[in-house]
């Protein structure tokens, strides 16, 4: 219909060719909806619309598609976006060819100086100063370190991480997480970048040709590297050399990169066990993390998501508490026994004012799967609606089967409740008899929590006298209240 200027975009022809004919009446209807129809045609069309129901429907349908575009979300721009943009522009000025640079820059020069990162200064130095050649060479030699800075910084125990990098399960998990966007849109940085493979003498040129955004990322990493103490910098160099000398440097570096990212999603507890625990503790914690599922990182709820899920569950538990009250009125015997155990076992200190938390703890931690309280489809959907977008996207793309999704969500519920309601372990420990406490404290890590729970129960039973007896360090509660957990 139209003869549009030829432009270089016939590359991606998906929704029908530009030149395909469109029904003239549709063109009129669209122009009408857009308020672009000349007045005389508008009157004519409106008359037709009054008379022709078919045409009205057509108009409505066009309008509906248009209205649905309102569903597209507003873009979210990070707080630092404008700042990074300015920095990038400033860096660009420093690196543009002499013709452009020779212009009088006025205030921009000041901005550039103020904002320029160390790397940009370094690049400027390439052009200007011969006397700095040595320092510059050194910096350019170090620059690839910045590309994998986080990876090198977490490599406290390289032999162990080398072992990890040979674990098939781990590799599968990393591949899968990357495929699902778990490491951000760009995925893990490649081990062999152009920069690292370019001889030091030519790296300045590579920098100049780098994508501005990529360069700005590199610059900020470089800045972080510069801020490290000389010892720490040396350590990073050594680690990089050790990685490069490894049997399979690419795989190892990939593992380090993935590990650096994944660990930020782990519960503090897991992280500590893996990074500060004894070799056994570490192996156990890491194996446990991998064991449950190859979808490691999906299972490892971030604290924010865990908190959000818990809040949803808390609301759901509000209904359950009410149901429980109703049941109590209807039944007696077994039920009152259950309720007593619920109250005696779980409701103490933190739970006293929070029956929902007590019930959640009971349903998801103590008596997992108790059939009276199951999460409904709606409940699971509510949980899904509060988790963060990347996790949700990964869940949907990765675990498309509704049944499997349910299992993952159920696992999250357990995890969220566990994290939220088992914070009182230290207090529990404090409340034990000194001898029991010592036994618990000396037990191997994987036995610690089960033992603690057992001892608490025994302790409670042992003291289940009419007065309860004084507690050495326990929270001050009414005498006779024995629930400690």
């Amino acid at each position, binding site marked *: 219909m139209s*003869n549009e200027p030829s432009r270089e975009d016939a590359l991606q022809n998906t929704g*029908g060719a530009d030149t395909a004919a469109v029904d003239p009446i549709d063109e009129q209807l669209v122009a009408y909806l857009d308020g672009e129809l000349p007045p005389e045609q508008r009157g004519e069309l409106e008359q037709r619309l009054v008379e022709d129901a078919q045409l009205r429907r057509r108009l409505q349908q066009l309008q509906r*598609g248009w209205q649905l575009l309102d569903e*597209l979300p507003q873009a979210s*721009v990070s707080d630092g976006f404008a700042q990074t943009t300015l920095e990038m522009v400033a860096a660009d000025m420093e690196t543009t060819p002499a013709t452009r640079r020779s212009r009088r820059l006025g205030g921009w020069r000041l901005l550039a100086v103020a904002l320029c990162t160390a790397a940009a200064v370094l690049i400027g130095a390439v052009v200007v100063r011969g006397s700095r050649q040595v320092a510059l060479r050194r910096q350019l030699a170090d620059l690839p370190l910045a590309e994998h800075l986080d990876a090198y910084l977490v490599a406290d125990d390289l032999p162990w991480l080398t072992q990890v990098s040979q674990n098939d399960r781990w590799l599968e998990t990393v591949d899968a997480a990357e495929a699902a966007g778990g490491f951000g849109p760009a995925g893990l940085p490649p081990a062999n970048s152009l920069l690292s493979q370019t001889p030091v003498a030519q790296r300045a040129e590579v920098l100049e040709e780098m994508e501005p955004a990529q360069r700005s990322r590199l610059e900020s990493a470089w800045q972080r590297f510069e801020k490290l103490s000389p010892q720490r910098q040396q350590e990073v160099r050594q680690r990089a050399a050790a990685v490069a000398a490894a049997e399979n440097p690419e795989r190892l570096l990939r593992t380090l990169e993935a590990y650096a990212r994944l660990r930020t999603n782990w519960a503090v507890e897991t992280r500590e066990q893996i990074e500060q625990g004894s070799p056994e503790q570490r192996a156990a914690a890491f194996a446990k993390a991998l064991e449950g599922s190859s979808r490691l990182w999906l299972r490892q709820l971030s604290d924010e998501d865990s908190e959000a899920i818990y809040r949803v569950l808390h609301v759901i538990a509000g209904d359950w508490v009410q149901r429980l009250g109703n049941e109590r009125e209807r039944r007696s015997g077994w039920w009152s026994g259950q309720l007593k155990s619920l109250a005696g076992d779980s409701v103490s200190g933190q739970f006293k004012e929070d029956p929902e938390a007590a019930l959640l703890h009971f349903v998801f931690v103590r008596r997992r799967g108790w059939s009276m309280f199951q999460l409904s489809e709606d409940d699971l959907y509510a949980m899904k609606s509060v988790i963060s977008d990347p996790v949700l996207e990964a869940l949907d793309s990765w675990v498309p089967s509704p049944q499997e999704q349910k299992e993952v969500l159920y696992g999250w519920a357990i995890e969220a409740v566990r994290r939220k309601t088992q914070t009182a372990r230290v207090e529990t420990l404090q409340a034990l008899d000194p001898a029991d406490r010592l036994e618990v404290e000396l037990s191997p890590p994987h036995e610690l929590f089960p033992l603690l729970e057992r001892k608490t129960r025994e302790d409670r039973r042992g003291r289940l006298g009419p007065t309860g007896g004084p507690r050495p360090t326990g929270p001050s509660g009414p005498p006779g209240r024995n629930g400690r957990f």
Partner: protein
Amino acid sequence: MRYQQSDPDVRLMLRVKEDDVEAFEELVQRYQGRLVRLLEHLGPRRDLADDMTQEVFLRVFRARKNYQPGAKFSTWLFTIAGNVARNAVRSSGRRQEVNEVDAGSTPSGSQAAVLASLATDASGLMPTRQIEGAERAEVVRAAVQMLNPRQREALLLSKFEGLSYLEIADVMGLSTKAVKSLLSRARVNLKDLLVPYVEAGVLSVDVVAGNGSSRPQHSKDR
């Protein structure tokens, strides 16, 4: 010039031309969100929108000395954005050729999959349910992605930015007549892609009341 007086962004850009840092920052602040939103749909991948937006600002800045306030500032900016998006699509297309052997799926394939999965819902294989929130957005996004790039650009400039046919023609270097038919094709295609879901009750539109008894009759124009 008319624009110089009426368009505050033109005044800002004229200050940028005189190397005014604050003016540039203000322009970035004013347009960053709008550009990211637009480029999320026009670029090869949604996650590249931030990078592409920065590229647009970089080009604006580089071109500042040659800026002539002959047009509305946003028209000029969106023209640059369109070019940046096309470049990005082209270079990602080149990479795609290299990766396709082992990757197996293409972006448009996954868009189709989103719609196809809903079609399954709508056909009754799964309980028909009304979808909401992020999922709705995903379906609409998938439909928009299936439009031809020029239709998409014209449509989004019209929808998001409220540009007139004349302004879109400026941005895209087309005649207004061409814009008119481009937009009508875009909207007919969008209708064909989305209205079935509305009529199956999967998507709802609050404002328009319609009985939605049959499928749309207009066939796709390809």
